[in-house]
């Protein structure tokens, strides 16, 4: 079996359950491919030996009732994993080994999953190209020197390059959907409160959500079903009725009302993206769905609002990295000097930029003008969606305003980098679920994605719509193994 790594997650699970494949064989296959793919720099930490050991243990006494029976999986390095180094892509946590497991990864382990490694990401998930990672750039397997998106860039790269059959990321402003879009993969940002944040290194607490990244919508449904649990260790976790998302998955979208927000037709958007959107609209109509023009009037304010709220929370969330208790510490003359040196040397430029922005907008005298106003606008953005959902079941937009760009291309232009998140950020501000699915290529041959936005806790509907789109689009990722010699 030479192409174990070509299998989708659901296929892999099926083969293992049918005993056509052992966990050990699967685990070794993905590890071997990962070893040959060092050039992508998708991994920060490898857990290969330990994973093979676990796979062997699984095979000795396999439990096929599990949803991920002995399935190897690499995860974003923002999830704390017991006894496996967790860095959040930062020097300040370079040698940090948690004694605890995040709820989401625990859910995966409980279903039989085996962690084969920790995947690269932007430092503290702050970035859209994986270029802010202390552990270096990640290559997009689509083409050499192309960014894989961010912040879950190691995850999207590893998935698209088939180093892992599925993966998990976190999405604060688009960090799952944008890299999924850039690599021709599927990424779901669940409703805020759906997946527990316990044990995930925090970036912006009111926006952060973990979610699956997979080859297709079926895999995505399975992963989401496993990840999403009510957790009393996270006060913002919501106890809603969770479905059997994979079982319930169907492509029947007859009668579904899909909104098209006019504010997402931004100036200067490449023609291919417009065409892609039209293609999506056409498929929905052809499958019995109804297209309704809607307005989300405060869309323009989403990005500035996001760049106040997220840094404000981050500036406080990152205060704990002070060199006192764990992580990197630089020697200082006194306490203040130690803080300054530790944080100057331990954090990268983008993280420092956001800490400074966040500290500024929360300062007395500026709080009302920035943070408080941003909270009010955030409410208005949420209201826009509430209004829209009186008329529609879901909303269709492009995932990003452009395809993947070259490494280094936007590194010195933060604003242009931030604009990448223009279609994804409003959804985090509103706390809604959204999925990005690959839908086509631009003229350079780089993948482009469509985003389906749903009502709160109605992940099933957007999975179903995405499933229908996926079927009709028949996207094919033209990835050659250029990085393997």
């Amino acid at each position: 079996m030479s192409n174990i790594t070509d299998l989708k997650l659901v296929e892999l699970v099926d083969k293992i359950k049918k005993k056509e494949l052992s966990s050990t064989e699967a685990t070794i296959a993905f590890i071997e491919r990962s070893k040959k793919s060092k050039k992508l720099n998708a991994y920060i930490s490898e857990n290969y030996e330990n994973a093979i050991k676990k796979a062997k243990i699984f095979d000795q006494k396999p439990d096929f009732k599990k949803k991920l029976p002995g399935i190897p999986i690499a995860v974003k390095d923002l999830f704390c994993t017991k006894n496996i180094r967790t860095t959040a892509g930062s020097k300040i946590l370079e040698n940090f080994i948690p004694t605890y497991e995040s709820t989401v990864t625990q859910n995966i382990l409980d279903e039989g999953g085996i962690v084969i490694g920790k995947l690269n990401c932007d430092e503290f998930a702050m970035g859209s190209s994986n270029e802010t990672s202390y552990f270096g750039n990640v290559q997009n397997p689509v083409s050499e020197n192309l960014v894989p998106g961010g912040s879950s860039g190691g995850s999207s790269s590893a998935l698209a390059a088939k180093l892992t059959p599925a993966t998990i990321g976190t999405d604060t402003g688009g960090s799952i959907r944008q890299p999924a879009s850039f690599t021709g993969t599927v990424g779901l940002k669940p409703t805020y409160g759906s997946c527990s944040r316990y044990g995930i290194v925090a970036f912006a607490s009111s926006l952060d959500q973990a979610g699956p990244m997979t080859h297709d919508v079926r895999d995505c449904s399975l992963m989401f079903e496993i990840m999403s649990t009510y957790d009393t260790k996270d006060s913002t976790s919501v106890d809603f009725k969770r479905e059997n998302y994979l079982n319930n998955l169907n492509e029947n979208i007859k009668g579904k009302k899909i909104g098209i927000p006019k504010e997402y037709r931004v100036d200067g958007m490449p023609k291919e993206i417009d065409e892609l959107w039209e293609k999506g609209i056409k498929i929905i109509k052809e499958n019995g769905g109804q297209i309704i023009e809607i307005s989300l009037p405060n869309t323009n304010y989403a990005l500035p609002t996001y760049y106040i709220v997220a840094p404000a929370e981050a500036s406080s969330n990152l205060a704990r990295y002070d060199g006192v208790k764990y992580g990197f510490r630089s020697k200082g003359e006194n306490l203040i000097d130690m803080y300054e040196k530790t944080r100057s040397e331990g954090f990268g430029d983008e993280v420092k930029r956001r800490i400074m922005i966040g500290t500024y907008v929360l300062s007395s005298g500026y709080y009302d003008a920035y943070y408080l106003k941003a909270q009010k606008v955030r409410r208005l953005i949420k209201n826009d969606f509430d209004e829209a959902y009186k008329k529609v079941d879901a909303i269709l937009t492009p995932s990003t305003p452009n395809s993947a760009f070259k490494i280094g291309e936007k590194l010195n232009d933060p604003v242009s980098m931030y604009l990448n998140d223009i279609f994804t950020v409003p959804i985090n501000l509103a706390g809604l679920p959204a999925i990005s699915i690959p839908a086509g290529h631009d003229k350079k041959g780089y993948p482009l994605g469509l985003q389906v936005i749903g009502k709160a806790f109605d992940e099933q509907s957007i999975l179903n719509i995405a499933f229908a789109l996926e079927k009709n689009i028949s996207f094919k990722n033209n990835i050659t193994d250029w990085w393997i010699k």
Partner: protein
Amino acid sequence: MSKNNGEYLIIRNDNKYEVIIGLEVHAQVLSESKLFSTSSTKFGSEPNTQVSLVDAAFPGMLPVINEHCIKQAVKTGIGLKAKINKRSIFDRKNYFYADLPQGYQISQYKDPIVGEGSVTLDMPNGEINIGIERLHLEQDAGKSIHDIDPQNTLVDLNRSGVALMEIVSKPDLRSLDEVNAYIKKLRSIMRYLGTCDGNMQEGSLRADVNVSVRKKGDKKLGTRCEIKNVNSIKFMQMAIDFEANRQVDVIEEGGSINQETRLFDTKKNETRSMRSKEDAHDYRYFPDPDLLPLELNDNYIDQIKKDIPELPDEKKKRFIEKFKLSPYEANILVSDIEISKYFEEVSKNSDVKLATNWITGELFALLNEKNIEITESPISSKNLSKLINLIKDGTISGKIAKSVFEIMRDGDKDPTIIVEEKGLKQQSDPKELENLINKVITENPKNVEAYKSGKDKLFGFFVGQVMKNSNGKANPKLVNEILKKKLN
């Protein structure tokens, strides 16, 4: 300083200054576990043995509110006759310090759990009401220890995350006596409610003190200074007295007061500037996104109200009405919940007047001498009650009772048994007493002669002789009666 009419005034060059005091009391919530984690709050454990991943702010750790602490705050609010806010918000107060692992303290800023209330104080000139501004919940910090290692500061996080109630008074206090009464009353209310043990030695009750002065008669408040973290009533009084006099001196010299935070040096008995208003921290308060707003419904609050025990003010009223105690006596007996419990146990089965006198007299003297709390009293309420009944039914005299009490204090022995064993029972048989009296009369013919000729004062001599011959056991009342009959 003058204290005429109970007034606390500072006098300089014929100018009289009034002192305005407000207190921010930090009371540790009585709770097994911390405000946002399940770690124990036990005092005096080995350093860093009561620290969870949440308390030490490990990556990805999240606070989860301890419902018991909410209940305690609501209870205390009710005890302070305060408004319970059905919606309150936890905010982050951001600052860096080695013993603050999160880099922020979770506190309540704009929307505290409890709003305005009041506390009644009994002062010599009558009752006064002190306004409560608010009560909010917050986390305690850890402890930085600078004097163990000469090179390093050590940090103990056992206290990190322990729940505190910050109770902010209005600037209604005017004297050191009122400060004393206020702290004692707060402590008493919280101990009645079981929401704070009020143990100042263990730091369960500390206060920031706000002090300003103004010329008597002025309406406008002066600029205040805040004295941080004072941990005993005595130190609060010393700090206020020093600070008020310092402020008066500055004003008298033509200067003005700078709003600032000061520290009280207990060794030098002075306050020192810590930081001015300009250097004040910018805490960048904002709602903690890890915690949802706290919402309480009427049913929840009503349920807590139902479980509120009788509080000192009500108990005092009841003691005065039911037991006919004086306000002074009632005040003493209700000041501490344990004293009031002890009193009610004793008086349940014995004379109230005697119970009051014996508790506030002999028992308090004993507790003072041993420097112990009433809960550690060597004499149980049951046995004190028995002793009082022995006096009341004439088995022993009050004087004998005192010597029985002396024996009881070493081991809580049943007074009935002591009286039995030592033969201390009062002699009340008229025949036996008559024999004793006859003997005294026969042995002292000269004094009998003198008495009969008008030396009335000698009556006491005869009583004394009878008592002496009976080893103090003769019933003094009967001795008096019989002796009078015999001699007249």
